[in-house]
């Protein structure tokens, strides 16, 4: 895919391929696709594989989603099962 500058950029940090990780990934993907399809870049970082990133990004709770763009940066932790709360707290307006 040609890299086009997207309006939204999200990093999701998980720890291993656990049920919780999969549940969170599924939920967040669904929410983003439903509301801002085509406008976002979404990366998943497994801190088991990249532990040094956990320190750099000051990760403690897992899973955690960081909205890098647009600013301000927003952090949200949980399984993202409540889509209304996710949209509201992440300041996503569709």
């Amino acid at each position: 895919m040609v890299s086009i500058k997207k309006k939204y950029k999200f990093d999701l940090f998980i720890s291993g391929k656990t049920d919780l990780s999969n549940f969170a990934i599924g939920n967040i993907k669904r929410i983003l696709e439903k509301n801002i399809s085509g406008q976002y870049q979404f990366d998943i970082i497994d801190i088991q594989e990249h532990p040094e990133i956990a320190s750099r990004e000051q990760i403690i709770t897992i899973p955690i989603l960081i909205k890098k763009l647009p600013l301000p940066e927003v952090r949200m932790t949980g399984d993202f099962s409540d889509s209304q709360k996710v949209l509201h707290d992440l300041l996503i307006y569709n």
Partner: protein
Amino acid sequence: MMNTIMNGKESAVKTQEYKLLKCPTGIKGFDEISFGGLPRNRPTLVVGTIGSGKTFFSMEFLLNGVIRYNETGVFMTFEEKTEELITNVSSLKYNLPQLINDKKIHLEHLLINQNEVHEAGKYNIDGLFVRLDLAIKKTKAKRIVLDSMDTLFLNLDKKMLTAEFHRLFTWLKDRNVSAIITAELGDTFLTRLGLEENIADCVIELTNRVINQISTRRIRIIKYRGSNHANNEYPFIIDANGMNVFPIVLRLFDQKILSKRIFSGIKKLDEMLDNKGFFVGSSILISGTAGTGKTSIVSSFAKSACNENSKCLFCLFEEAPNQLIRNMLSIGISLDEFVKDGLIEFYYARPSLQDLELHFMEIKEIIEKTKPMVILLDPVTNLMTEGPNSDVRSMLTRFVDFLKMKNITVMFTAAITLGSISQNPSDEGISSMVDTWIMLDDLVFDKKRTRTISVMKSRGMIHSKDVREFIISTNGIEIAKLDANKK
């Protein structure tokens, strides 16, 4: 039935082995009250209010691990920025930045500002585990500190945390690291999370109490599964040499009992003491009201010891050294020459209780350096007038026990009279820690004051039971039979 017996045996063996597994903290006094240190390869919970010394205790555990026991460490802090922490421990002799540089200690700040983190559904604290794991691997750490958990507690969901703390304790055990986890005082943290009862094998409490405007730091081992430990609260101080816990002598049985004697410097007094004077390494209390001549007895003793070439440490809490030398000269006791010869060393301080433990510390340091054979404390009463008596008594007891272990003879003065003891029975505690108690008194008859002297007690010898007249003149001290009609 058979099964039960087997299990019983097995667990007995396990306990036995477990007892041996200790991780020394290197903190002066603490390894004594814990019989060897913290549980090795297990987590310990250190609780205490703000400013009670949790961080300092943990940091010293880690630093001593590196310097003295060749064990690297990880310090995870939620509380302070790492730079602040380095500044705070820079008062210690160790060079923390250097140790970090050498990868002997890994210091990491866990920033948690949950106000800025939104929550939506289930989560855990795997981030902490991953970071801890990496830090342990990087430094091959054997000692871990997590300081302090309250920050998490304040920010995150309590139910989740309870489960996660259980997981953390188990995880730490699996990693074979000796860990300290700190938390603020008990009620909120321990009970609500049910930590104390269930998972912590060892719980230590630090307090910093202010009584009568005097602040005292205390340490207590609340529980220590599988190990003996001392149960009392012990005072401790934090100074340039680190933390110092004062155990109420646990090794007194090590003490050598000497039968050697030392003269009091007053011939007639020696006569009252079995003709031989005091025992070397014993403790001697001179009590009496003001102006009964306590200091003159102490000075005579010092002079006599110096004549025998025994070094004296003269600790003054009332008169300044020069004043004492002048006053004693007026009754024919010249100390000046011994001061010049270095046989008498002075320690002079105005008494204030908040410093009492510090005074004793400083005196101990002088003792280690100059190795005196006789210590004189004049007076200790001043130290006892303030604050709760029991505190002073236990400090004094520990100090006297310390001297005993070193076979140093100690003489101290106090304004205690028989009357005051019957009014205030707690003073008896003071007499029970001394081996020889000499009482001075002031009797009035024929409109004239007469000083008297008697030996209240003297362990291990047949002493005189007489009350005798005690005369101080320009020629020195005399003891005479009390005029019969004066009685």
